[in-house]
């Protein structure tokens, strides 16, 4: 049987990344450098079923996903979409050893737990708002 070799991919503009090596499990920092979460998973736009037509647009990353999806990454399975906590890819400003966002963590869904713990527990303990001395 003749083996078919894949043709080289077309050159792409901008950064080329291996998602598994350089994107997944990276820290996500917000605009001010404060950690928000890790990249637990990535949401990619749909790949058409069946044979892929030659002129089909390539799938794009639509969001960074975090939250309960981590459990499915470790143990397997699939979460219903309503359980995904997404950071839209449009919020990402750069991808280096960490993923930097162009927005503040405050506004994101992904920082909800942090805000909840802060407002309902930590803020209530005296001294929480001060710098350590």
């Amino acid at each position, binding site marked *: 049987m003749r083996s078919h070799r894949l043709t080289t991919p077309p050159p792409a503009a901008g950064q080329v990344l291996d998602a598994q090596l350089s994107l997944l499990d990276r820290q996500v920092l917000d605009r001010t450098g404060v*950690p928000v979460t*890790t990249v637990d998973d990535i949401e990619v736009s749909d790949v058409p079923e069946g044979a892929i037509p030659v002129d089909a647009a390539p799938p794009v990353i639509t969001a960074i996903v975090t939250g309960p999806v*981590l459990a499915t990454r*470790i143990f397997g399975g699939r979460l219903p979409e309503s359980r995904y906590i997404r950071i839209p890819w449009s919020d990402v400003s750069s991808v280096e050893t960490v993923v930097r966002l162009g927005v503040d963590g405050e506004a994101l869904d992904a920082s909800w737990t942090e805000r909840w713990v802060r407002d309902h527990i*930590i*803020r209530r303990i005296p001294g*929480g708002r001060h710098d*350590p*001395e």
Partner: protein
Amino acid sequence: MKRLFAVALGILTAIGGFVDIGDLVTNAVVGSRFGLGLVWVVLVGVIGICLFAQMSGRVAAVSGRATFEIIRERLGPRAAVANLGASFLINLMTLTAEVGGIALALQLATSVEPMLWMPLAAFGVWIVVWRAKFSILENVTGLLGLSLIVFAVALFLLKPDWSGLAAQAVTPQVPAGEESPTYWYYAIALFGAAMTPYEVFFFSSGAIEEKWTVKDLSQSRSNVLVGFPLGGLLSIAIAACAAVVLMPRSIDVTSLSQVVLPVAEAGGKVALAFVIVGILAATFGAALETTLSSGYTLAQFFGWSWGKFRRPVKAARFHLTMIICLLLGLGVLFTGVDPILVTEYSVVFSAVALPLTYLPILIISNDPQYMGRHVNGRLTNGLGLVYLGIILVASLAAIPLMIITGAGA
């Protein structure tokens, strides 16, 4: 001059911070039952902890990232979760032992029941973690921990048979009344006490807390390479005091009060005061470190905001984790379990978990993507592989030996 002061401070802190309740108890037990026949294990353990603390400090200083962040990035979430699970549980056990140790030390000073001291001890640890600056926390407990030098002083005051002690150390023998499996069980326990896994996470997160860069590497190297061996000498002094005073009387150490009796015999009430201060500082410092480590490991794995350099509202889940861990530890202590027993189990389980905690460090410190040109040299890697072998053997043998010897009975 200021530079010299900083160097001295670093070294002194490392010496004083080396000993924790695990070292205190295990070395005293071993000294009272086996004399100095297990000193070689302390030496092996000290070299090991120097090796790995150096590696983890270097990783943090060069890459600017803390251990658990890199473990997850480099080895994937599955490996990281296994590592996290083991490390976190052992850490919690060690934390419980240290807080119990604080209470026991306070009992030695005041004769008041340890259980009454435990809530105060846990609260004390929490308030320091909540409010105190990282460097102050480290320096104060480290320097006060130097009080433990009184064990070495006591040893000299006891005028022991030095050649006899040396013979015990150089040609180890299992004494009459003890058996081989028990000897090896305690060897593993002592190894686990010296190689304290939480040290790795604490050291590398601490490097980030104090904002180390490549320039600080030589400072950290001297802290570790001078401070830890001297701390190891303190451990040996603890064992030697027990060997000289307790072993001839057939006293097996099972409580903290027995650990300090040799010091009282040698130097009276003054020495006793020093040793109690030293034990308090050592256990309190270790309690702080294990509490912080529990926060570091969880926060770094999940990508939460962490660090003592941030005010608590800016690192909410980090602080909540530490509060919960302290409460859990307190809960366990309130069941009335003997803190010494918790200590003895924590060091053995530390030995079991060692491969999981150290293998990632070895892998990452060889990764040029994070380390640039500061990857491990040949010698470091050679030693690292040898130690990985030792760690694996100790880890596999620990539980069977625990069962055979009935946990060292």
